[in-house]
């Protein structure tokens, strides 16, 4: 009876049960809540105790401090610049190029299936 309850989602080489994992996540969230309760509760809002510390640098307006979307993963995109050049040239907005890819695939598949 316990065996059929635990045995769910059988793949080709084993099985895996999501209910056990859900229980583990709930226990982990409970632990996080308990650890958070160990923090200090006596502080004064509005004074120096709640300002962010930026190693002595001044803080600009909120608009310029937020890391924008196009600046993330800059290292990844710069390192693979050759691959991205080819991909960007494939995806220009030209309608005729889209139909050209369709006809190229038909031609290639004709040759492969016709020969064999």
């Amino acid at each position, binding site marked *: 009876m316990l065996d059929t309850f635990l045995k*769910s*989602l059988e*793949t*080709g*080489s*084993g099985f*895996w049960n*999501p*209910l056990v*994992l*859900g229980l583990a*996540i709930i226990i982990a969230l409970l632990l996080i809540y308990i650890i958070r309760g160990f923090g200090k509760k006596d502080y004064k809002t509005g004074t120096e105790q709640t300002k962010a510390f930026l190693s002595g640098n001044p803080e600009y*307006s*909120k*608009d310029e*401090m*937020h*890391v*924008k*979307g*196009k600046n*993330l*993963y800059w290292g*990844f*995109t710069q390192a*693979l610049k050759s*691959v*991205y050049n080819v*991909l960007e040239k*494939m*995806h220009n*907005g030209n*309608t005729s*190029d*889209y*139909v050209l*890819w*369709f006809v190229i*695939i*038909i031609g290639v*598949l*004709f040759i*492969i*299936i*016709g020969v*064999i």
Partner: protein
Amino acid sequence: MNWFELITLHSPPLIVAVPLLAAFLTPLVSKINDTVRNLFVLIMLSITGLLVLILGYDVLTNGIRVYVFGGGAPLPSGMNIPVRIMFEIDSMTIFMVIITIILALISILYSWSFMKDKDGLDKYYTIILLLVTSIFGMELTGDLFNFFVFLEISCITSCALIAFYVNKKESLDAAFKYIVISSIGALFILFAIGLLYAQYNALNMATIANAIQFTFFDKIVLVLLITGLAMKSGLAPMHMWLPDAYSRSPASVTFILVGATLAGLYGSLRVIFTIYGNQLLNTGFTFYPGLIIGIIVTALGVLSIFIGVFMALKRSDFKKMIAYTAVAEIGYMFLAIGSYLIGLALSVPDNPQMLIAGTYALKGGLFHILNDALDIGLLFLVAGAVYYATKQTSLNSLGGLARNMKYTTIFFLIGLLAVSGMPPMNGFASKLLIYQSTYQISPILSIIAIICSIMLLAVFVKVFQSIFLGPEIPSLKNVKEVPKSMLAAMALVACIIIFIGLFPNIIIDNLVTPAAEALQNTTTYISTIVGGT
């Protein structure tokens, strides 16, 4: 027979006819009031949902069914060649029809308040009901030319819906590209259907499947049909219309367009497994074409996973990133189907382990159709909610929205975990099946699939940090939460995702396994029509 058996007997054409009737009555009803029109559309789709449930229960317990238009059941006496249009319903059809009706109902619920202050809404509801009719028709039919007519209806109506924002110039551009590519693909499909009729003098799928050989013209027909239908479902390198069309249309329209794309995938499954089943799935030859088709489909699937994930990493427009993710997910489904064909080929000289791995890959691919439609749909609904609240979609100008829109953040978190395959959401269940079964066929495929899944997580973490976390931007200070009907639609999808993720066995045993078995043996499909009553 009592009324319940009467409805069950006539439910296949009623599923197509009820939305069609509602589509033509909607302009009349909308002259009364706006709320009455919304309620009318919702009630008509609920009636269709009831019919789908009745038909599904009947097919899953009693087996395959045939509905002949304009004659007795199954064929009039004295005729041994089927010359009428027939609907043939087996378990694979029921699986796709259930997905479609869930997508349609949630989209209408979402567009109750998403489209409240826009103009021309009676035409919008009419065309959405026509699109739903054409998707149902594509999935229920058993006749090739009927399939072509419904395919053309879905092309025309979805082009009209993509160009909904007529005052912006990008939507018109995307609609024009979509209609050019779709009509060229449909014309090639019509050419292939004409060639098949010239050889075998029949348009019925079961009759052609019974008599098919692999001559020179059959090879031409196979290439044209697979390429045309794969282009409609978004396989690389013919996927280029998909990011433009998905990202420049309203969010509730994109939710149904996902259903139209999956109907194209269903069409290619019918061509490979049912019409050409006797040639491609036969293990009696020595070097036979199933292996070639399997290798081609797997290669195109891996290519589209790569292109989808790499292009999604560089973009900064919210909806375009989700659209490129949709291209990658279609690649996963085609990878699973190709693995089944290769596994069937390699298992011929006494190696049955490959066939078991191939069967689990097929089940994983079919289960992934359901999961992918729900996950990508939830992400598009969240993107629509952000656009409704702030009127912007670019990542460079948004930030710190989690303070004002709490529920939307939670739904986006659920969608993020589900798309990238994290347990215990439903994405993990189907992707685990695909990983473990493609590993036994060739380890490189499994490694590529896992790496690209992790990169999808990277893509959406970037989106989450840019839009929802961070300090509060002064220009977005008074952003309010979205209205209640949009929240209800998103909550419904999230509940279904969590339910399927926690209890995947219920769906696999009752819906996916009968569908996989219906695709694998073609003799049941053929003998119901050709072998007599």
